[in-house]
């Protein structure tokens, strides 16, 4: 804790000891606690640093008029303070603990009704219970019963917190097995006779007793208690070591059996959770039996959910896996008439009840969706567990898709009363398409690729498919294309159908559909490229679209009225042309037209997305082109326009993209230069544009290598290309991500052409001659201002002529020329960098500011009339 904060804290404590109602906003207390927690976690002792806190606690607790929020804060703070044995003892000495957590006191004061206080109580105890002494205190104070009561509190948050707390006590203090990995110091556990051991036994006894009691609902209204108890049990069993686990199972075994037999739908999933948690932590005959019973309950919907839960856990119990697989395949078998399960003999009665369930539309859809979403996992189970070949599951999903679209030729094999429920159901269609997409990885799936394509093309063709369904169909098509190594199965008819449907869909009425289609074309080009790279088979890209060029379709989409579609068309075009660029293919006739349309979009489009896409188009072109090609001059010419337009754009993302393009040019210009560190910026890119950038401080390259000849000509080239202008204008941009990126690039440039370490005079004279022009207004003026300020700060030996020139710039609106090196050195880039890397709210987020806020607010509160506007970041 820094000194300033330490000085302010007593004042804040005084404020809080008062009524507490004058807090600047309701998050202040949370922020204070967060800060304290941070200090504790870092190993600091709060009690030593701020003795006033203890006083604060006891004042607040004794003040009958304390705000419940502040009381809750005091409770949690106490717990935090008492988290180590040492401070626990200190607090005990002040006999604060008994007062703070005295339940009776709160109940009598009528404050217990306030959920705020109850949660404070739980969380305070939770923070404190990190050592055996705390446990002893907990047990001696007989807190276990009230805590158990809170488990079914009316407030969900409190109930959940109580559950977590109960689990924490049992798990945290459980005796560590010899090879133990967690828990309390072993020295305390060694003899097994430490006070905590008896305390722990007591706690285990009462909690497990409670579990046994409350597991089976006595009346229907007690279901919530059972639910909570099951959740707690699942938490415990998942992490409990063998002694605790065995003890728990021994206690609740009968109740669990009773619950399984009762078969309440509401409890199926939590119950399954408990059983699976128990299974995962060890084997036990009884638990295995329970699991078997769960997979044999006679309510089809519950059974399917139970089976799905079992499969999701990914357990490798062959018998039960086989059972779960059969359960999940049965509805699909019934619906499609595909014999997935062979001849069904014993389960006839069960099948009958499933059929009955499937006849109701809503439960049919939900059951089928659960089954579908588990099919990919089913195909990956060992073959001896599967009742059929994995490939038949692919066939089943396909025939389900056909039924859904009403295209099934005849469902003479399936049950028509059931299948009518899914006809036209978008939900089932989406689920089935998702399953189909994932099924690419199942063994033998590739055999069905031709059927898959047929069905997917039918879906794309279907006028009633909704946009999401179409989107998922495209995704499935791409996924299947990407795993396909042999396109010979694609008949001319399929190819023709696909081309026709894509042509139709790019003209769709709904922009979402146009967008998905255009995106699909782009991704397809990407997929085809990767296949090509793998198979080195040049004509495979045409295999799918039958040699049909998609460029005209995409060019048409550039004119679309919807900005998303224009943006997608631009990126799709980039993906489509990447391969040509990489090969250095000659410029086609349409490329110049595309480029001019793109530049038009960049300069005129009113929406940001297409403009961003345009800059990215040029980024990918620039990064994939091979220099000696016929397209180079067109590229370089357009890049120049992109830089100058992108720089002036209103959208900050366009500007950042423009800077990326500028970076590529820098990379190219200086890649041969020993001082240049290529891609120095890309690793630092913040994950989110607005995120705090603090991962790595920017390191300066302190190399002293002499400059190679030609660096100045390279510099002259980038100046001429407009790169330097982009960087400088970016530097003074009001959007932080833009300024940050520009600043980094400028520093890189500076370190390459005129590092500070060399000293101003060492810079080669030739380099100093390279200058760039700054416009007399806008960003140019901003740069000039900075330069001028720096100059006046610096020694007077500065060139007077320059000074004059800068003065002149301020008077008129004429542009001025400045030496690039000069500018790079005098812009104060490093200080700027430091400021820019801090997030924009770093000042308002500091503990100091928080303390000040609290104090100011209370001052205003006592002097009404003045209003403080709190920063609401």
């Amino acid at each position, binding site marked *: 804790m820094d000194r300033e904060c330490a000085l302010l804290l007593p004042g804040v404590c005084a404020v809080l000891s008062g009524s507490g109602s004058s807090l600047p906003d309701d998050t202040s207390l949370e922020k204070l606690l967060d800060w304290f927690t941070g200090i504790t976690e870092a190993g600091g002792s709060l009690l030593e640093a701020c003795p006033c806190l203890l006083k604060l606690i006891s004042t607040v607790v004794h003040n009958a008029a304390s705000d419940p929020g502040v009381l809750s804060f005091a409770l949690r703070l106490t717990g935090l303070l008492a988290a180590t044995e040492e401070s626990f003892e200190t607090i005990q000495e002040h006999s604060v603990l008994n007062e703070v957590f005295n339940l009776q006191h709160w109940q009598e004061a009528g404050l217990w009704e306030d959920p705020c206080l109850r949660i404070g109580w739980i969380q305070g105890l939770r923070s404190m219970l990190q050592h055996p002494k705390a446990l002893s205190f907990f047990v001696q104070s007989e807190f276990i019963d009230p805590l158990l009561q809170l488990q079914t509190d009316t407030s969900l948050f409190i109930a959940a917190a109580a559950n977590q707390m109960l689990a924490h006590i049992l798990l945290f203090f459980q005796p560590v097995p010899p090879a133990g990995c967690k828990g309390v110091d072993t020295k305390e556990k060694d003899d097994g006779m430490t006070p905590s051991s008896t305390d722990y036994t007591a706690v285990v006894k009462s909690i497990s007793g409670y579990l046994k009691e409350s597991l089976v609902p006595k009346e229907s209204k007690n279901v919530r208690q059972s639910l909570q108890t099951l959740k707690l049990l699942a938490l415990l069993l998942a992490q409990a070591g063998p002694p605790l686990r065995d003890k728990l199972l021994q206690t609740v075994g009968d109740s669990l059996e009773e619950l399984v037999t009762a078969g309440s739908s509401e409890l199926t999933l939590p119950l399954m959770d408990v059983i699976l948690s128990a299974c995962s932590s060890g084997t036990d005959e009884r638990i295995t039996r329970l699991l078997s019973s769960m997979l044999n309950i006679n309510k089809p919907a519950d059974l399917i959910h139970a089976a799905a839960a079992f499969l999701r856990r990914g357990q490798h119990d062959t018998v039960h896996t086989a059972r779960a697989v059969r359960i999940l395949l049965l509805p699909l078998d019934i619906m499609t008439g595909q014999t997935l399960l062979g001849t069904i003999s014993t389960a006839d009665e069960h099948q009958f009840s499933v059929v009955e369930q499937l006849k109701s539309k809503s439960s049919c859809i939900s059951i089928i969706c659960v089954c579908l979403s588990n099919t990919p996992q089913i195909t990956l189970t060992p073959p001896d567990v599967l009742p059929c070949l994995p490939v038949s599951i692919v066939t089943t999903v396909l025939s389900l898709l056909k039924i859904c679209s*009403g295209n*099934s030729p*005849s*469902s*003479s094999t399936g049950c*028509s*009363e059931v*299948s*009518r429920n899914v*006809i036209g159901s978008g939900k089932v269609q989406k689920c089935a398409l998702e399953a189909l997409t994932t099924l690419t990885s199942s063994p033998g799936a590739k055999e069905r690729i031709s059927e898959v394509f047929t069905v997917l093309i039918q879906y794309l063709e*279907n*006028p*009633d*498919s909704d946009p999401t369904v179409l989107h998922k169909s495209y995704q499935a098509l791409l996924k299947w294309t990407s795993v396909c190594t042999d396109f010979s199965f694609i008949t001319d008819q399929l190819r023709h159908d696909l081309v026709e449907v894509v*042509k*139709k*869909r790019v*003209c*769709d*009425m*709904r*922009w979402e559909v146009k967008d998905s289609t255009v995106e699909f074309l782009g991704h397809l080009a990407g997929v085809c490229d990767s296949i090509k790279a793998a198979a080195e088979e040049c004509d495979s890209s045409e295999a799918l679209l039958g040699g049909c060029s998609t460029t005209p379709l995409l060019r*048409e989409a550039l*004119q*679309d*009225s*919807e900005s998303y579609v224009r943006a997608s068309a631009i990126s799709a075009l980039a993906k489509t042309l990447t391969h040509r660029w990489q090969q250095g293919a000659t410029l086609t006739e349409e490329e110049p037209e595309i480029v001019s349309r793109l530049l038009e979009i960049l300069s005129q489009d009113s929406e940001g997305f297409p403009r961003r896409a345009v800059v990215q188009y040029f980024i990918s072109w620039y990064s994939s082109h091979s220099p000696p090609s016929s397209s180079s001059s067109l590229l370089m010419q357009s890049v120049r326009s992109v830089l100058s337009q992108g720089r002036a754009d209103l959208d900050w993302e366009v500007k950042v993209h423009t800077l990326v393009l500028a970076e590529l040019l820098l990379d190219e210009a200086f890649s041969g230069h020993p001082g240049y560190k290529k891609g120095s910026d890309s690793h630092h890119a913040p994950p989110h544009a607005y995120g705090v950038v603090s991962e790595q401080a920017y390191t300066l390259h302190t190399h002293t290598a002499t400059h190679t000849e030609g660096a100045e000509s390279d510099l002259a080239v980038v100046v001429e290309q407009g790169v330097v202008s982009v960087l400088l204008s970016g530097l003074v941009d009001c959007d932080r991500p833009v300024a940050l990126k520009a600043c980094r690039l400028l520093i890189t440039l500076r370190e390459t052409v005129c590092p500070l370490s060399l000293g101003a005079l060492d810079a080669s004279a030739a380099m100093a001659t390279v200058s760039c022009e700054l416009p007399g207004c806008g960003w140019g003026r901003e740069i000039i201002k900075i330069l001028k300020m720096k100059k006046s700060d610096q020694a007077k030996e500065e060139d007077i002529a320059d000074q004059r020139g800068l003065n002149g710039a301020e008077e008129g609106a004429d542009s001025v020329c400045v030496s690039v090196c000069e500018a790079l050195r005098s812009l104060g880039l490093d200080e700027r960098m430091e400021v820019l890397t801090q997030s924009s709210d770093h000042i308002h987020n500091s503990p100091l500011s928080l303390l000040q806020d609290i104090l100011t607010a209370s001052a205003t509160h006592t002097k009404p009339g003045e209003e403080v506007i709190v920063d609401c970041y």
Partner: protein
Amino acid sequence: MKLYCLSGHPTLPCNVLKFKSTTIMLDCGLDTTSVLNFLPLPLVHSPRLSKLPGWVSKDGSANLEKELKECAGRVFVDSQPEFCLPERELLDLSTIDVILISNYHCMMALPYITEHTGFTGTVYATEPTLTIGRLFMEELVNFMERVPKAQSATCWKNKEMQRMLPGPLKDVVDVWAWKRSYSIQEVNSALSKVQLVGYSQKVELFGAVQVSPLSSGYSLGSSNWIIQSHHEKVSYVSGSSLLTTHPQPMDQSSLKNSDVLILTGLTQMPTANPDGMLGEFCSNLAMTIRAGGNVLVPCYSSGVIYDLLECLYQFIDSANLGTTPFYFISPVANSSLEFSQIFAEWLCHNKQSKVYLPEPPFPHAELIQTNKLKHYPSIHGDFSSEFRQPCVVFTGHPSLRFGDVVHFMELWGKSSINTIIFTEPDFSYLDALAPYQPLAMKCVYCPIDTRLNFHQVSKLLKEVQPLHVVCPEQYTQPPLTQSHRSDLMLELQPPPMPYRRCSVLNLPHRRRYERVYILPELANSLVPSEIKPGVSLATVSAVLHSKDNKHTLQSVPKPPPVAPSKKRKRVLEEPPAVLAPKTLLSGAVPLEAFLATLQKHGFTEVKVEETADGHILHLQAEDTLIQLEEDGTHIVCDNNEPLRTTLRDLVLRFLQKL
């Protein structure tokens, strides 16, 4: 109550309902699918059609070269197209009192019914139905008369001859009943019998029933009908739609509590969702235009075309079709576009409110103003000078057998860059295209049928809960081509009564009550007595007077005064004799209790005999019989008045007096 079914076409119905003393025809749709068996009527001489070979049977025994032509493996009649009329032999059409029309598609057979059959009744229809129906008829007549064909082929209809013909000509039935189009005079005469009605307007028919049209939401002025008497209600549901298109929304609630609901005019395309089809239409249109091709849309001159134009109005800008010309060619194009704008009160709420802005309800006005949509009466004249390609042409007739569409088929059919998009669901597109084969043009089938689908109709029926439903037999089983789709049929409890052409159904509803009016003075004379709380009875003696299906109870005319005399005053003083009601008895005589009472009064020897209607008590000592029956009690004793009186009083003890 009887229903005579004169048409087997589920969406072009013609039924006759006999209800109380009225005979009501419900719609008179004209089945035009018969024209598909005929060769197209080209507007301009078509060398291709004129060179088609005549048909001769393989063994040469049948030679109909003049009448039948062969094209792409099918045989067509080379004559003016003929239509399949509603059945005219099932009942005497002159007995029909009224014809109720539900929409302009369902009145095309009107001239065949009202003219030359002795029909003397009235036709009821809404104003837009009449106006647009007239346009349709005029267009049809125009299409036919503008390409006159002297020849009328009849030899092929010969039974012996027809048997030898290849399908589908071989299988068509009732060919002798097929008729050529009517004349404009017949149209005018038929339509002069129409009387206009507004939604919910009640029309009395002979005092027996009341009919009233309800909005059905399908087309401008389209209606369902309620036919009701005081105690019975029959609903007639014809083409109806729940989609939000241009017409006023469907009135569903008035259909509630029907005894019988006659359900016709469901969608012909249960699997084609209109929204999806509209999207399909637009994307195929844009795709063709972008590729430099022309789009031909065979359509009727009113109805879905308004929605198509509205949809295109929004679509053309987003699809960059702003410069593509749209042509609407029909003899009645202008009237159709203009009439649609003036029927504000028949439009959906959204469009109605535009009238007050003021703005034309339909955006096609703007398309016309900006020259994006141009309309012409025919391909001759102005059109030929304005015609620019690539373009989109909307024109009739959807059967492709007559009208300007024939010309465009000949013009564009050979090029694969052109597309024909079918939007009308009335004709199978493959059959429509048959005489144009081989065809290079791309064909797209997007039938847009906004009428109720099975899902909507079962929901509707659940809501309005009719006691009985009558419908075409086609609705009671899944479509032939999709026999597994059990969701594409009506499933009701009790099952609907199916009908087919020429069916005569005895509707299951029995009339049980009739309303009778009572004149005030007669009512005034009644003296009701309460037999239980809320229920009073009174006896009435009156004369029942029936006229125009109205029944009235009038006072019994008093016997004419004997003679004006001095006694008159006395007569007038005797009214109590009339007013005092005779006591009426009610109740039953319980046997056991009665026997006990008899015993108490000394009748000890009683022999009880059970009969079909009750019991006979034989008082042996007195030799007297008492017959206790459900509706009467008789005491038979000879000349023993005191005994009779005693016994009578004993019986009366058990009965209640009014």
